[in-house]
């Protein structure tokens, strides 16, 4: 009888083990499958993915600084260009409409791998304390699971009075974004790092220029923060102080500033300086060379041309103030070399060459505009308006052919002529030209403004008789 009883017990135990084992295996396989498909169903804008990828791919304790802020952070600073110009490794954790409540947790997350970096906090979005679902998704969808992520989501949800049950979509974004399946493209399946260190490559940034000069506003007056903003700022400073975080608060140049926003920058400056933190207000710094008639794609965001000027100024500011070493040539920073090469090559399609863009002289009274462009079977004739004081003109070309997508130098005119004929073209191809005026300064060409959109036309398929 005892033998039977023990046999039964053993059989029962084995049965239970089998059930538990089977269930666990099923759950693990299902979990793995879900992990595989989940990234497909995240917020449609994949910039945060690139931002996180770039950040987490850095070696531990290897970057000089980390910029934390909203979209005007990545519209102004390009890490790859900063590296190319000064050899400084300044990373970014910047997200569309980053709410100030999240900054403290972004620093906490970043400090897990970059504990000794300088944290540059962009204060331009400090007024956007309103919690919105998509803003949380921008932050959370690509952040790896951790206690920081949980805290971040819960703090934001508490601030936005989001129900506990509704918070799950920030941990499992497929709950909100699963319907995206019918708008998938082949790119959706191949989400991978572009190696640009979070560099902006969206078309609005690259291709748009809007005159925002009438929106520009500056004041020395201070406008007080509201209680919520003050509490957020105090908590942020407390955290930084308690953890010995090196911080620089920065206000990036932008137009479209209401009086209250610009006034609040001054208040923030007073508060943070009182606590011993650095602050720099770049809103009214002429040396950057921002041209509000051309260098923005909307009132709050620089375009590529404004951004390149900003990088030159701000990179130098960081080097001068914090003494960051030039690390170019260091074999540990090859990914930065690659990012610079790739990003500057990409920019050539839009700005001829980055070095031309940010070394422009404002000596000329206007930009060079092509007035006539006539296209024949295998050549094109260009004419442009004279620029006073210009000593010559460089002519650049690109086309719709795959191997000519970026601007290529095709020739120079120095004899006072305003005419250039470009030979050797292919039939039925759309070519785009632009003319860049220059003067010689200490034997080196100094370029003036040019029309980066250029003038386009198509060569004819057959000879006209």
């Amino acid at each position, binding site marked *: 009888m005892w033998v039977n009883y023990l046999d039964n017990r053993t059989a029962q135990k084995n049965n239970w083990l089998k059930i538990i084992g089977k269930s666990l295996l099923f759950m693990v*396989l*299902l979990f793995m499958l*879900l992990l595989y*498909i989940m990234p497909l169903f995240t917020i449609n804008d994949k910039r945060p993915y690139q931002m996180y990828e770039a950040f987490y791919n850095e070696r531990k304790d290897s970057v000089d600084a980390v910029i934390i802020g909203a979209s005007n952070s990545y519209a102004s600073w390009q890490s790859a260009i900063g590296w190319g110009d000064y050899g400084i490794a300044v990373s970014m954790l910047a997200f569309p409409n980053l709410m100030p409540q999240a900054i403290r947790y972004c620093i906490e997350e970043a400090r897990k791998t970059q504990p000794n970096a300088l944290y540059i906090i962009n204060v331009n979005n400090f007024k956007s304390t309103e919690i919105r679902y998509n803003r949380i998704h921008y932050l959370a969808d690509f952040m790896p699971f951790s206690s920081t992520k949980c805290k971040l989501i819960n703090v934001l949800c508490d601030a936005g009075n989001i129900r506990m*049950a509704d918070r799950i979509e920030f941990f499992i974004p*497929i709950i*909100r974004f*699963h319907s995206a399946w*019918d708008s998938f493209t082949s790119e959706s399946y191949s989400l991978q790092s572009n190696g640009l260190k979070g560099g902006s490559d969206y078309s609005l940034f690259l291709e748009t220029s809007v005159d925002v000069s009438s929106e520009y506003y500056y004041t020395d007056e201070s406008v007080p923060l509201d209680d919520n903003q003050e509490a957020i700022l105090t908590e942020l400073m407390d955290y930084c102080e308690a953890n010995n975080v090196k911080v620089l608060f920065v206000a990036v140049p932008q137009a479209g500033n209401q009086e209250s926003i610009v006034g609040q920058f001054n208040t923030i400056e007073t508060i943070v300086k009182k606590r011993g933190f650095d602050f720099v207000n770049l809103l009214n710094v002429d040396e950057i060379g921002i041209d509000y008639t051309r260098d923005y794609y909307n009132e709050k965001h620089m375009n590529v041309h404004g951004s390149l000027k900003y990088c030159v100024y701000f990179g130098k500011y960081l080097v001068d103030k914090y003494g960051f070493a030039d690390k170019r040539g260091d074999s540990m920073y090859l990914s930065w070399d690659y990012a610079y090469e790739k990003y500057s090559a990409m920019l050539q399609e839009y700005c001829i060459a980055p070095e031309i863009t940010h070394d422009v002289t404002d000596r000329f009274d206007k930009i060079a505009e092509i007035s006539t462009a006539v296209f024949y079977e295998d050549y094109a004739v260009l004419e442009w308006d004279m620029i006073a004081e210009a000593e010559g003109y460089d002519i650049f070309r690109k086309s719709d052919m795959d191997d000519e997508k970026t601007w290529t130098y095709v020739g120079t005119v120095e004899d006072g002529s305003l005419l250039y004929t470009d030979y050797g073209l292919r039939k039925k191809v759309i070519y785009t030209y632009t003319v860049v005026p220059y003067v010689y300064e200490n034997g080196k060409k100094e370029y003036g403004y040019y029309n980066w959109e250029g003038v386009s036309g198509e060569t004819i398929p057959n000879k006209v008789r």
Partner: protein
Amino acid sequence: MTFVSTEFLAFIAVTTILYYLVGHKYQWLVLLFASLFFYYSNSKWLLLVNTATGLITYIIGRLIENNNLKGKNLLESHDDFTAQEKKKVKEKTKRGSRRILTCGIVIVLGILVFLKYHNFFAGNANKILKVFGVKIPKHSLLLPIGISFYTLQALAYMIDVYRGKIAADRNPLKFMLFMSYFPQIVQGPIARYNQLADQLYQGHSFDYDRICKGMQLMMWGFVQKSMIADRLAIPVNQVFYHYRDYHGGIVFLSVLLYGLQVYTDFSGGMDIARGFSQMIGIEMDMNFRQPYFARSVEEFWRRWHITLGSWMRDYVFYPLSISKPFAKMGKITRKLFGSRVGSRIPPFISMFIVYTLVGFWHGAEWKFVAYGFWNGMFIMMGILLEDKYNLFRDKLKIDKDSYGWIVFQTVRTFIIVGFGRFFSRARGLRAALFMIRAVFVDFSDLSFITDGSLVELGLSNANWILLIFLLEILFIVDYLHYKDVHIRETIAKQHVIFRWTLYFAVIIAILVFGMYGPGYNASSFLYEQF
């Protein structure tokens, strides 16, 4: 907390774990607390209406039983009673029980009528009373979830106790569980006490296979509800909200799609409820048996919402048919129209009343009354014209068992029932009539299928293709059930790799293609509103 939500999944996971952890004796308590929690999370303090109805029903049940017992005891303690005295005691007891029952019915039904139908009656009465300058005030009342379902359950319970078919429940808390059991509270099935109560009260041991099968049924429920019904809801809502903008072809298509929507919605919800119940060892009544394979409207109603149909049969149709007034009416009609026709009139009237009530049960609007009329009318016509119809078929030399004839009958029934749904789904009676008119007057051609009009109904091309694919699967599954193939058992016999691949595919499909989550708001059930 709707069935199609992460909260519900978490809720049933916790409930199932607790159910098996506490041991047999307390399992019913877990279900009671879970049911009250579920009810509260959906209806907040309207839970009290459910509780009050349950309590009243419990007390009425006990009073009836006590009264019956009192009579019985009186008879047993007085052996010396004459036959006449015994009859008198029995009659008195019955009269007393009937009074208590009537009281119970008036209160329980009164709650439903007041909450659900007050405004309807007041609105219609005011049209007449306007002449006298009298106005009955309307109230903006919230309906407790499942009131139409649990009220019928309560009525059936009291009547069954009165009829002596069941013993009254002795435990008020257990009875509360019967009245509020959460899987069935949203949209049925309308359970009978003798079929469900014992299952709820007794303990169930953990059974791995049963849990797997329950989960499979739930998954199929989610496929129907979340992938098919809520996807169909998009074009259906578009057309029914803007019915004047569409020509007859699209209107006709939309009502057929609505027929599929309401089926997959209702049946999906039912499978989720039944699946969960199976996981904890409770077998709930079937509410559907492939209704769209029915070959007549009458058969359709035997396959559609079966528990409502059987409730109406047992508690309205039969009592009416054998009631004294109907017996008297039968005599008169036989005298007037002869026995063949005359004997059919009383049951027809009962049937007509039943279907009007079925329509009215769905909602307090004339369009639902019309919906009931429509179905009742076709059922009666089917019975009345059956002989002529068969004669006509025989003259055309059509084999009644031929495949073509069966398909014809099935499609014909689907369309007749579908047309009836104009009444239940349209915004009002006038809108329903407008839409029916559009189908007959404004049906120009079928070009809307290919000219891109369908995409303008809110579903992308990819979604239409997916929908067609899902409807094909639904058809195959229903057909296999119709042919008595046990799909889950067939799957269980397959190799583990096949089975698990299938399960993973279905889970991922629900996650990706389901219309759930914050991007959608169609996750409440259609029958929840009734």
